[in-house]
């Protein structure tokens, strides 16, 4: 083994006569060996990561029932859907919705473990299986449908634009040549490139970062769903939301694709239907989406 290692690294040659071995000609040769080693390491790493995925094929619904809790990915930075309030407690529309689902599936509204996700990593937290479902202002669209499954929509938002109160921007047409901040991985990021092709778009990882850039005057506007903007307006009266809505963004719960998650999806969809029918969902909308009227 030692001999083998010595051969690979050419240790003897390097150590015995260091000066003569290091020439311009042997340099590429030594680098090829190291490159090969690097590629080998990569292949092994990828192999290991793909093997790990094959472990669970047990039905998700029975796993959840056995575990006694639902692990839900929610946002911590998007008032009024999922946010940390002044008393350091997690609150919001999505939070209450998941609690309601837990209550109807597991019989206990506290049987939920909340994990923070952001617009950029919510899809990955599903595909890697670290959460059972994602309730994080997730717009249903066809591109995402190729990777994950959605529940029936539980809310319809629309993309809007937020500007400082004294801003001259009246409409999306005024945005050309201006700087717009977005959150990476959101649908609004792609839409704004089509709506205002000449605007500079800067992406951040969280809404907190994006909004603080707008507040500092580093950008002229922020674009995202109107619900999230109204959430910011509650605490920041120096800003306003423009009247136009550019898209319809149906929010759905996200699930990992797979045969094993089907029964869990059906159970959740049944709950959604149930709470839509008995008015619980309407109560939640009234509770969280204050003055905002759903279009």
């Amino acid at each position: 083994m030692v001999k083998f290692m010595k051969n690979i690294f050419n240790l003897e040659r390097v150590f015995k006569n260091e000066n003569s071995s290091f020439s311009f000609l042997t340099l590429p040769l030594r680098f090829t060996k190291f490159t090969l080693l690097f590629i080998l390491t990569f292949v092994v790493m990828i192999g290991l990561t793909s093997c790990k995925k094959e472990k669970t094929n047990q039905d998700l619904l029975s796993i959840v029932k056995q575990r006694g809790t639902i692990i839900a990915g929610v946002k911590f930075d998007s008032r009024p859907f999922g946010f940390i309030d002044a008393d350091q407690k997690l609150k919001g529309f999505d939070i209450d919705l998941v609690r309601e689902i837990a209550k109807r599936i597991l019989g206990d509204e506290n049987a939920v473990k909340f994990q923070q996700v952001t617009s950029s990593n919510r899809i990955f937290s599903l595909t890697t299986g670290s959460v059972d479902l994602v309730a994080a202002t997730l717009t249903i669209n066809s591109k995402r449908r190729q990777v994950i499954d959605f529940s029936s929509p539980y809310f319809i938002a629309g993309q809007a634009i937020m500007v400082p109160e004294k801003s001259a921007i009246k409409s999306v047409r005024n945005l050309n040549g201006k700087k717009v901040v977005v959150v990476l991985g959101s649908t609004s990021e792609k839409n704004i490139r089509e709506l205002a092709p000449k605007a500079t778009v800067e992406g951040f990882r969280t809404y907190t970062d994006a909004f603080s850039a707008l507040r500092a005057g580093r950008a002229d506007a922020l674009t995202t769903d109107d619900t999230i903007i109204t959430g910011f307006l509650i605490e920041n009266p120096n800003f306003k939301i423009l009247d136009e809505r550019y898209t319809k963004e149906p929010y759905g719960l996200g699930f990992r694709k797979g045969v094993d998650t089907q029964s869990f999806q059906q159970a959740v969809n049944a709950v959604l239907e149930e709470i839509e029918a008995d008015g619980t969902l309407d109560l939640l909308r009234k509770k969280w989406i204050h003055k905002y009227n759903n279009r």
Partner: protein
Amino acid sequence: MYELDFNILYNALPSIINGLRVTLLISLFSSFFAFIIGVLLAFLRNTEFSAARFAATAYVELVRNIPLLILLYLFYKGLSNIGINLPSIICGILALSLYTGAFISEVLRSGINSIAREQFEAARGLGLSRRQTFSLVIFPQAIRIILPPLGSQFINLIKNSSLVSFIAVTDLFYVIYKGAVDDFRIFEFFIAGAIIYMGLTGIVAVISNLLEYYLKIPGRTIKV
């Protein structure tokens, strides 16, 4: 089972090249400024003025013990609180140069200290001024000794430059990250990113090795 599909990278190629351009720009400017800052600091730490020595030491100890991300946010968010809104790319270059400059000055100082004291005294005895001694006798020898650790500092700088994506500079990492979250293809984009960064730092490594080989002082290499 995750299926790798590298074809997805073709569509993202133009934006990756743009990101690479920004990363190169930031790295080149920061390397240049960091080296100048490093040389200045190392020089200040070896002068006879105790105030300058103290200031340089304080700067190095302050900056190199702060995480780079905090430094970045200080320039990006902190300065805008007091009304100075620098473009984010300038903030990135500033933070990177100041940060790496502190490390480079330590590397340079170790090189300067490794030159025998007698050489300094001899040079002074021959009538060279302090500045001449530093630039003609000490520095040319020191720079040869510290080439390998200096190369590492520039390699670190290139890799650290990925942090500027946090303040919305559209550098290589920003593009890679955006591609990964837009297409839900984390492995393809991050592996491609790793290889590109490796290529960039590899170039620096080769240059530093070649410089080391061609500039080496005969008799100073230790034979095992």
